[in-house]
């Protein structure tokens, strides 16, 4: 009996309902984790701050107030509400620089994840699918990248490419790619043995279609969790490179770069050192909390109490 049009409509509606239900179930498990929800709220705040930096920040990040050099935060003696978190050694408002720095940090995270995730997925799926010499060679190259500690590798790459935020992002993305490649390849190898893949192949599905529609969706859950945690690592690594002077260059208000400039003032002006680092810590913490919550909600094994 062929499907009547009303039946087809209900079929697609049923799949939409199924997706909504899956989403609702996911949200139910995710929201049980108070920390993950708190992390998510904080991340949303940071995103808003980053997107609306031009309007939210009291001043432009490069504006110098020569009369207000090294002014302490507003609650200390000598501070004022004009500069809530104080000013830095050349009179720039720290709060404004932090807000603009949020934009940079999120930008870094996004670019690094996009780069490493796409290359990781492409390389991983093809490796698991094609096998042979291609796979062996690829995995050995990944082993080489993994054998060198990530920050060292990033430093060497930046030494070649030259200091700067863009090059730092590329360097960090290169060090992250092997993790995604390994993950995707492992999942691909497992999925390929499954019956539905064999069935699709017998039905005549082309390789690319197979990889994209059959294998890829089943890799998504661990990839999402890994991507979230890599996002926070990317922010940390970019800040580390900035701190070492190999990342974003002054006067860019990247949080790590701000810390590099603040080093000599740890005895004189604690606020110049404390706030940028605190911003890094809280952002990374929030993202990691979210990542933990994501992992618990997506992993069926953990669903029982």
């Amino acid at each position, binding site marked *: 009996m062929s499907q009547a049009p009303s039946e087809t409509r209900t079929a697609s509606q049923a799949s939409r309902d199924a997706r909504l239900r899956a989403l609702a179930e996911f949200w139910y498990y995710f929201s049980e984790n108070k920390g993950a929800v708190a992390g998510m709220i904080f991340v949303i705040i940071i995103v808003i701050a980053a997107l609306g930096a031009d309007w939210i920040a009291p001043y432009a990040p490069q504006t110098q107030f020569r009369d207000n050099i090294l002014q302490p935060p507003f609650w200390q003696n000598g501070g004022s509400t004009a500069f809530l978190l104080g000013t830095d050694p050349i009179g720039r408002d720290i709060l404004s620089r932090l807000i603009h720095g949020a934009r940079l940090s999120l930008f870094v995270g996004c670019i690094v994840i996009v780069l490493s995730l796409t290359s990781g997925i492409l390389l991983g799926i093809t490796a698991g699918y094609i096998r042979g010499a291609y796979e062996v060679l690829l995995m050995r190259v990944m082993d*080489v990248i993994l054998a060198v500690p990530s920050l060292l590798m990033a430093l060497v790459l930046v030494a070649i490419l030259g200091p700067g935020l863009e090059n730092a992002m590329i360097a960090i993305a290169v060090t992250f790619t092997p993790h995604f490649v390994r993950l995707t390849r492992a999942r691909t190898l497992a999925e390929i043995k499954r019956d539905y893949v064999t069935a699709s192949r017998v039905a005549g599905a082309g390789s690319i279609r197979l990889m994209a529609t059959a294998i890829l969706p089943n890799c998504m859950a661990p990839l999402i969790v890994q991507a979230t945690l890599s996002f926070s690592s990317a922010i940390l690594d970019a800040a580390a490179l900035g701190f070492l002077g190999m990342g974003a260059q002054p006067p860019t208000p990247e949080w790590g770069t701000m810390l590099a400039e603040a080093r000599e003032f740890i005895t004189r002006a604690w606020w110049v050192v404390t706030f940028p680092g605190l911003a890094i810590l809280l952002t*990374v*913490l929030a993202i990691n909390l979210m990542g933990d919550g994501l992992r618990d909600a997506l992993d069926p094994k953990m669903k029982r109490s």
Partner: protein
Amino acid sequence: MIRFILNKLALLVPTFLGITLVAFVFIRLLPGDPILLMAGERAVSPERYAMLAKQFGFDRPLLEQYWHYLSSLLQGDFGNSFVTKQPVTEEFFARFPATLELSLFAILLAVIIGLPAGIVAAVKRGSLFDHGLMGISLAGYSMPIFWWGLLLIMLFSGTLGWTPVSGRISVMYFFDTVTGFMTIDALLSGEKGAFSSALHHLVLPTVVLATIPMAVIARQTRSAMLEVLSEDYVRTARAKGLGPFRVVGLHALRNALITVVTVIGLQIGVLVAGAILTESIFSWPGIGKWMVDSIFRRDYQVVQGGLVLIAAAVMLVNLVVDFLYGLINPRIRHTG
């Protein structure tokens, strides 16, 4: 067991070769002319350029150059620093003990605190201690340790004056280097207060470097213990009437240790990255600081050689960890 180790060794060789390839290509990828870079000279006459090219072997085919490079490496010749003109290997081994000492203290601290904390958190699952530990460890591995170090310096060296700001030992001590480990050498020298000064200087850098590994080890130990504690053989141990300390500390932990050893091994790479940052903050004269300084000084011979040496050291340590893992895991020890 033998087969297991041989397999790991077999993997090492292509990886090491790959790293030498990266290092070899590194100099040729840098902006600027590699020959001039290696000579450390700016503009030269064409005759001198041709002479330099011949001296560094750039007139030979690429493959031959790589072969020459590789064989020099294997003979221990990593070239000379552009800046100090001393052999790279000499500079590396002069600074390596400093990093090694710091790393050993750090990993010891991380394990001594992280492991028991993770065990207790697993046994007392859901308690205040458990939640508190999870929170602290999450903060620990979210921590930008370069900032954490500065913060601790501000507090303990600045405000409280308890610890020194930089260096490995107070400048008033001077004695011969025997092992390269400041603590041991201080003890051997017999000078009063030298050992305690060395320890004082180690405190903050160790805490900073140990922060991330400690947090990760605590977390992973808890996770491994939770899994093991729900296994059938733990129930069997209880069914034998064994006391809780033996059940947890021997039957459970012994199995969880298999996972934890792997985790500790993974922290080696983290330690090197952390060492780079920690040594920068505390002016600790180790190979981390050496690499950063060399990149800034454009001492590319050092960067190239340092890359290979550090990677080789890391791979060696990983091999030792793999060996330990093989010993601990009975399935590998007795059949693998």
